[in-house]
């Protein structure tokens, strides 16, 4: 009865105080849309500029080289390299600095002759080592060059290998790769609406009235948690629906996706409780709340891929953040169609972390806001 009243009141107030709600539920879909526009919804391509200086040689392989570079393709048939010919290397080097071009390949005078005489041909690559696209672009470029060199020198390859892509990762576009992180981001954004919905009772002192009633901490937190869970599920669903509309590939079970989503929502609400315990006003939430928001955005792999530095065996520092496990679980579900058994570790960690954060949150919330002075 009391819980139903709290749910009804929290829902009404959530909709009437709609700015925080809009920010929470629309941020992630907006990010999905921006990502889609940035990636074009297709696989990543690497911009390669070719400067062919060996123009006087009897053997002109320039067009063959261009075709070879263009023939490096993904499994879905899309070219990996976007090849441009250039005569102005200085301009291209400037573009590399501005990251408008990923790498420059220059073919020096005598390159073709080396192929004919069997001596080792030389060529040069220019790129910015700190640009992550350079490394991958360089591998694709060298693969194409090797293929061309083998063709003319008739040399046997030093080794052969066959790539085996796991799950449906071969069919993944860059958009597909980043989308699960943004799905989790849609839940992380709850940190604002959930914290604000609770802090209003502190700031407006309505908590004083509630403290005098029969309402228990359990009633209050369960009622508010259910409402924020609904907001989180809606936000997540909206983000995923938009992503699917824009071509996102989902292999896995929707039930498992919802399970991960639900647990992550609960863990974020638990983090909100801790945050609210140390704030007294909505303004403080908007200022102090940025700290956990940014930590959860940037150190869980939801927005940017993270290196994994284990401080003790099997445990990295970001493992204490629930969304870290949620991002991994969603990637497994979307890419490998993972079963519950295959994500049991992530589910286990989400459950444990949610319980730990909730208990911590309840302790501090009671101490700071609910107990008598």
């Amino acid at each position, binding site marked *: 009865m*009391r819980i139903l*009243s709290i749910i009804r*009141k929290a829902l009404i*107030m959530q909709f009437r105080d709609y700015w925080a709600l809009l920010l929470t539920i629309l941020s992630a879909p907006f990010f999905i849309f921006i990502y889609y526009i940035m990636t074009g919804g297709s696989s990543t391509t690497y911009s390669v500029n070719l400067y062919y200086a060996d123009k006087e040689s009897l053997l002109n392989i320039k067009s063959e080289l261009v075709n070879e570079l263009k023939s490096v393709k993904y499994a879905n048939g899309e070219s990996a390299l976007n090849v441009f010919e250039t005569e102005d290397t200085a301009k291209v080097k400037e573009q590399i600095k501005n990251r408008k071009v990923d790498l420059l390949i220059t073919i020096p005078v005598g390159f073709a002759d080396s192929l004919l005489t069997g001596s080792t041909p030389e060529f040069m690559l220019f790129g910015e080592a700190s640009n992550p696209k350079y490394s991958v672009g360089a591998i694709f470029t060298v693969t194409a060059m090797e293929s061309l060199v083998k063709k003319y020198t008739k040399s046997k390859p030093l080794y052969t290998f066959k790539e085996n892509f796991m799950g449906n990762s071969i069919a993944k576009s860059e958009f597909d790769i980043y989308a699960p992180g943004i799905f989790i981001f849609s839940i992380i954004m709850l940190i604002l609406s959930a914290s604000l919905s609770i802090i209003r009772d502190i700031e*407006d*002192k309505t908590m*004083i*009235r509630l403290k*005098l009633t029969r309402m228990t901490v359990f009633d209050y937190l369960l009622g508010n948690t259910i409402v924020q869970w609904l907001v989180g599920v809606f936000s997540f669903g909206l983000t995923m629906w938009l992503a699917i509309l824009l071509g996102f590939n989902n292999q896995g079970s929707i039930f498992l996706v919802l399970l991960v989503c639900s647990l992550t929502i609960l863990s974020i609400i638990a983090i909100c409780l801790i945050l609210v315990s140390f704030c007294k006003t909505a303004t403080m939430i908007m200022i102090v709340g940025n700290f956990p928001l940014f930590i959860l955005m940037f150190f869980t792999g939801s927005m940017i891929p993270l290196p994994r530095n284990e401080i003790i065996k099997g445990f990295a520092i970001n493992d204490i953040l629930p969304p870290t496990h949620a991002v991994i679980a969603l990637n497994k579900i979307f890419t490998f169609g993972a079963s519950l058994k295959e994500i049991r570790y992530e589910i286990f960690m989400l459950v444990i972390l949610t319980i730990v954060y909730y208990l911590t949150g309840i302790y501090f919330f009671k101490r700071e806001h609910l107990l*008598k002075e």
Partner: protein
Amino acid sequence: MDILNETINTSSISLKAENLRKTFNGFVAVENLSLEIEKGEIFGLLGPNGAGKTTTIKMITGLLNPDSGRVIINGKPAEREKSRLNVGLCPQELVLWNHLTCFEQLVFIAEMYNVRHSVARGRATELLKKMGLSEKSKKLVKTLSGGMQRRMNLLMALMHDPEILVLDEPEAGLDPQSRIMVRDFIHSLSKTKTVIFTTHNMDEADRLCDRITIMDQGRMLITDSPENLKRKAGKGDKLEIIFSGSSPVLHDISNLADEVELKESSVYFRSKAIVDKIPFILESLKKSGITVTGMNLSENSLEDVFISLTGRRLRE
């Protein structure tokens, strides 16, 4: 003895506070405060800012734990949750949900006390009508005027039908019309409820209260009915006698009252229960050959009592 299960035999006493003490970081906010408030009584707590009124109210309602002493509600120690539920609080500041309508928040707060939804709806409708807010029933509280919000603040304390109503400066910020409405409303409540309220408005306290306690610096200075307070404390009633012709000699009349002030055509006498002394004063003036042409009497006010007990020094 288990203090929580103790029942104190105080059948006509609605609320009893025994030796309450509260300190904040060494500052004594309330010291050794004891009260007994009878059922159906309207009891006023008066005092300058910082006197300890709000702290006392918070201890009575259970929002603050006293350092020592205890509160007994209807014969039961107030540590018991059920005892506290008999109390309704209208805090000094507006404590309302700005994004709920008047009706919604009245029903919501009632449901937090386990009042059934249908009963809560009926009670909300009735109270809104009594407070002249029926037309605002579906309006968000934040859209109401300050006076209307004050009235809503008061109604919120009544939705669970408590036996004891505690009002912390309920008339603050109200226009005269609203103040009269709230005063009549509080008066009507006293038939069925015990009302405890704090105020700075002496006139309001004088009109409404059956008994008043004046507090200062955390201590209770005096408790009595407004009439008795005015009779017992303060400098007393003020009598102005207007005369014509020759002026009396101050020395001859200075023993007629506690304070005597002679002016060009009038003389002021101030003393407790001066009404009883009027014939004697007039007789004395007549004997002195003074021709009395007029007379004005101002009764000792509660404000006079208050100032005489607490002084004129500003507290904040």
